[in-house]
């Protein structure tokens, strides 16, 4: 008696070895895909969207690449997910985490083919990951107390992060900018407060950090172009026609004169509102919503600068920098906190006019203006800078740092290797495999730079045999060098997240012994 189908028609089921192979292959394919972007000499990818316009993105950022892929393999989806989480949590290391997870699975595959049970491999990986973390913890450098040194640490981290991106030419310039921006946040991790404005034209080197705040808006016609000692009211209110919000209200009249009267009343109402706003004693009014011509004219008459349609983040940031509160009612002028700044002026960047607020009261936010040859360059520059900012803001909170350039991987690999030697039983194979997977990262970095990876990694391993060695791969000169001297640093938090989530993902995929794919949901509209 043949077994009836248990599943629906289009569903499929893969068991045992085949399931494991399918997930290994899927995960490794994804890892190999992003592998070539790893390291300072990693290559970029062009992504073309299938949507309208076939817009093109050029990027080096692992999370961005993986996010745009359409993947069907469930195991590959797990890797995409960890890269996304890495991006959200620490911002950098999105490629490393996928590559490490891929390498762990590649090693696991070899072990599985030599008849070691996945559960044994998982047990080994767990021990190894714990040991690797300990090894890193032992070697961290923490310069929190020493402000000057801490700043230089941050500079180095920023430079290390940026050197694999498009900004590597001007990495010092950008690192300086990123560190400055993050220091202004004073420990908060809310990167929303840092505004990045992209303006095509000029070169990347022309990008700058502005202490004040730049709003990408134009000043209304006939209004002052420059205000000193500005008092700013930040508002979120309707400045078109103030709608009656009571439900069901409507205007019903029986003659033209009545219409005119009501129109007049409406105008009067707006005038009142403007008067009330002016009653705050301000000379600058920024609104989130539209400002119609009529109130704008009233503001111009009063010599007040009115800026309309500033988006929500803009408003929030402006509130942050100027110390004003976001107001929606204007009946109690005495209790509304106004924002202050020394100077508001219109500035030109490239061809566009922007409004510049300088000398602000509370410097928690700032703007970074990026210049560059094309939109693609600017987009990529923004992503790179974002990575750097993320890492820095996380490092400000957790100030432990490590050396970079494959140094942490070698340190971990060495400790893990030693653990493997001490461990009895089949687990030791898995622990050894873990150390091999770790070494694969410096190997990839060297390979991507077109260096002789076998030679370099062997040298590195020999160097690391000595206690307290600082050797890593210096991709620029193509040799093994002292990472501390060359100032290549990485944040501990990033490395730890890479290690733990890669192990977690590998463990998850290893535990699977069956894949069941449901029948895809039928979409009627496709017919």
């Amino acid at each position, binding site marked *: 008696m043949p077994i009836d189908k*248990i*599943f629906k028609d289009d569903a499929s089921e893969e068991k045992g070895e085949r399931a494991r192979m399918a997930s290994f292959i899927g995960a490794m394919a994804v890892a190999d895909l992003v592998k070539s972007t790893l390291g300072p000499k990693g290559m970029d990818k062009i992504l073309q969207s299938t949507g309208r316009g076939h817009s093109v993105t050029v990027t080096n950022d692992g999370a961005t690449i993986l996010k745009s892929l359409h993947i069907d393999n469930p195991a590959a989806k797990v890797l995409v997910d960890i890269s996304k989480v890495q991006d959200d949590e620490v911002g950098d290391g999105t490629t490393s985490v996928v590559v490490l997870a891929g390498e762990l699975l590649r090693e696991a595959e070899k072990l599985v083919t030599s008849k070691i049970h996945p559960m044994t491999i998982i047990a080994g990986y767990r021990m190894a990951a714990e040991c690797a973390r300990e090894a890193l913890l032992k070697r961290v450098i923490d310069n929190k107390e020493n402000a000057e040194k801490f700043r230089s640490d941050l500079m180095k981290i920023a430079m290390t992060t940026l050197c694999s991106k498009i900004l590597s030419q001007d990495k010092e310039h950008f690192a300086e900018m990123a560190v400055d921006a993050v220091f202004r946040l004073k420990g908060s991790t809310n990167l929303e407060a840092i505004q990045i404005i992209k303006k095509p034209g000029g070169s990347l080197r022309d990008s700058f950090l502005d202490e004040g705040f730049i709003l990408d808006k134009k000043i209304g016609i006939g209004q002052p172009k420059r205000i000193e000692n500005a008092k700013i009211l930040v508002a979120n209110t309707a400045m078109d026609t103030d709608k009656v919000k009571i439900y069901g209200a409507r205007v019903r009249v029986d003659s033209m004169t009545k219409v005119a009267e009501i129109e007049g009343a409406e105008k009067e109402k707006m005038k009142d509102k403007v008067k009330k706003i002016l009653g705050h004693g301000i000379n600058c009014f920024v609104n989130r919503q539209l400002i119609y011509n009529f109130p704008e004219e009233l503001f111009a008459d009063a010599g007040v600068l009115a800026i309309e349609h500033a988006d929500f983040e803009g408003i929030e940031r402006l509130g942050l920098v100027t110390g004003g509160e976001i107001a*929606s009612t204007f009946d109690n002028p005495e209790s509304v906190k106004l924002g202050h700044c020394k100077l508001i002026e219109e500035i030109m960047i490239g061809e566009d006019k922007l409004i510049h607020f300088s000398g602000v009261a509370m410097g928690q936010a700032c703007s970074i203006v990026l210049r560059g040859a094309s939109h693609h360059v600017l987009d990529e520059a923004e992503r790179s800078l974002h990575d750097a900012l993320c890492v820095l803001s996380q490092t400000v909170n957790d100030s432990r740092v490590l050396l970079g350039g494959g140094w942490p991987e070698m340190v971990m690999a060495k400790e893990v290797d030693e653990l493997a030697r001490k461990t009895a039983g089949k687990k030791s194979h898995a622990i050894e495999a873990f150390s091999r997977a770790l070494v694969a990262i410096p190997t990839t970095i060297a390979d991507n730079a077109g260096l002789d990876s076998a030679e370099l990694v062997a040298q590195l391993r020999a160097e690391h045999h000595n206690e307290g060695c600082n050797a890593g791969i210096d991709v620029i000169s193509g040799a093994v060098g002292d990472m501390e001297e060359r100032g290549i640093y990485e944040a501990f938090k990033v490395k730890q997240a890479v290690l733990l989530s890669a192990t977690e993902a590998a463990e998850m995929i290893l535990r*699977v012994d*069956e894949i069941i794919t449901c029948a895809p949901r039928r979409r009627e509209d496709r017919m």
Partner: protein
Amino acid sequence: MALAFDEFGRPFIILREQDQKTRLRGIDAQKANIAAGKAVARILRSSLGPKGMDKMLQGPDGDVTITNDGATILEQMDKTRLRGIDAQKANIAAGKAVARILRSSLGPKGMDKMLQGPDGDVTITNDGATILEQMDVDNQIAKLMVELSRSQDYEIGDGTTGVVVMAGALLEQAERQLDRGIHPIRVAEGYEMASRVAVEHLERISQKFEFDVNNYEPLVQTCMTTLSSKIVNRCKRSLAEIAVKAVLAVADLERRDVNLDLIKVEGKVGGNLEDTELIYGILVDKDMSHPQMPKQIEDAHIAILTCPFEPPKPKTKHKVDIDTVEKFETLRKQEQQYFDEMVQKCKDVGATLVICQWGFDDEANHLLMHRNLPAVRWVGGVELELIAIATGGRIVPRFQELTPEKLGKAGMVREKSFGTTKERMLYIEHCANSKAVTIFIRGGNKMMIEETKRSIHDALCVARNLIRNKSIVYGGGAAEIACSLAVDAAADKYPGVEQYAIRAFAEALDSVPMALAENSGLQPIETLSAVKSQQLKENIPFYGIDCNDVGTNDMREQNVFETLIGKQQQILLATQVVKMILKIDDVISNSEY
């Protein structure tokens, strides 16, 4: 017209020539009619009487009916049919196939399944109920098995894999009995007797567990047994402690009841599994409505509202006509006054935090901010209820009904941000009535969080069951082996064919420890027989399978416990479903849809 399937199993329809219409006349017509009538009667014949068999019907939408009632059968009947022993064999095969999928997930060394849903979403899990639910099965019997595991999940919460494996083993044994020529009804009856023996025996070997609020170690140990089969077993100790503390916090020890609705399980991607924490309060995935409101409130008096900070919207249809300037003006004034009053009302009763189910108007938002009254908007109904329970407040549907007594109280409300994105959550802690708690899970990726949520749910259920009933049995297959021995011994006392079925039941019980041993990489038959003889020799029901390679078979030493009701329920449910499947002798499925 005929329905056929191509090589991929997809149905397509063949239209035949319609011209050859036949006609039957005279005696031929009568004979044909009589034959049809007889055929129908024959279908129902086997359903007659107290020992009549059931029919299984699959409707046009795949819904399954199992019945013995003639009218229902005939009404739904058409299309393909499987009869008699064929039907039984096919059903058993399907049931076994489902059990086989789950078999490798059993026990601490069980493997996970990766499931890809119809929309391409990926779930990785070890939980039997979840696997079956997401598998989206089409077979009628497979659906019964899914139901089985679901009812175990609802009733007990744990052991969802075990129950299916058990049912599969029972079916396998039943097949053998059928081959011997034993009538399925006799097998079913034998199983019924055996299950009664097993459940009674479990009661006998169970042990009472003494614990109280201060000494909850035994509870933690039991929860750890549950968690050890999941991917979270890396930090099972801490998770088990969290689960037990959570259950104890909301438990009503007097009434021996736990309302698990009071435990909220929230997950946020990021961080480590080790960062998972128990919050004696509520966690709301929302932030303050105005960015400049204070982020931390001590000693908060919370107004919990279900009315929006917006002008009222009466339910009855109405129109406010504006036809004069005066009306326009008054309406405007009224509107302003309305906002003002709403905010003032909250302020007057002494609220320092407003939690609202609906949105705020911009103006109201600013007024709130202006009066230094932090507010949270768009809070879901369930969360609102939990907040009300935790803070001892009342949910207020109208501003007019706001009074100081109705405010909830919390020692600390704070906003916390995560990671590099703008994600914030609101912690409401040190509540007046700490009867509602939140378990906040962190983890490397989405699938991990989901799986952790399921595991925590299992652990919570176990802890709850222990509070309801303090009895435990020993895990690691020890209870099954003990039952198997008892059932085997009891078999000889029954005269008649049922004896064989009872013995078969005993064998089926062995399959759970066997699967455990298999998944742990041990020799299944060797290990099982060794443990069995050990139990028999020393007459101690604590010996089980040493899944973790600790070196002892004594489950007392390994601290592997399961709840008594969980185990009993497993055996009862599995027996019930198997009996049902055995009673079916006809599968009528409507395949044309």
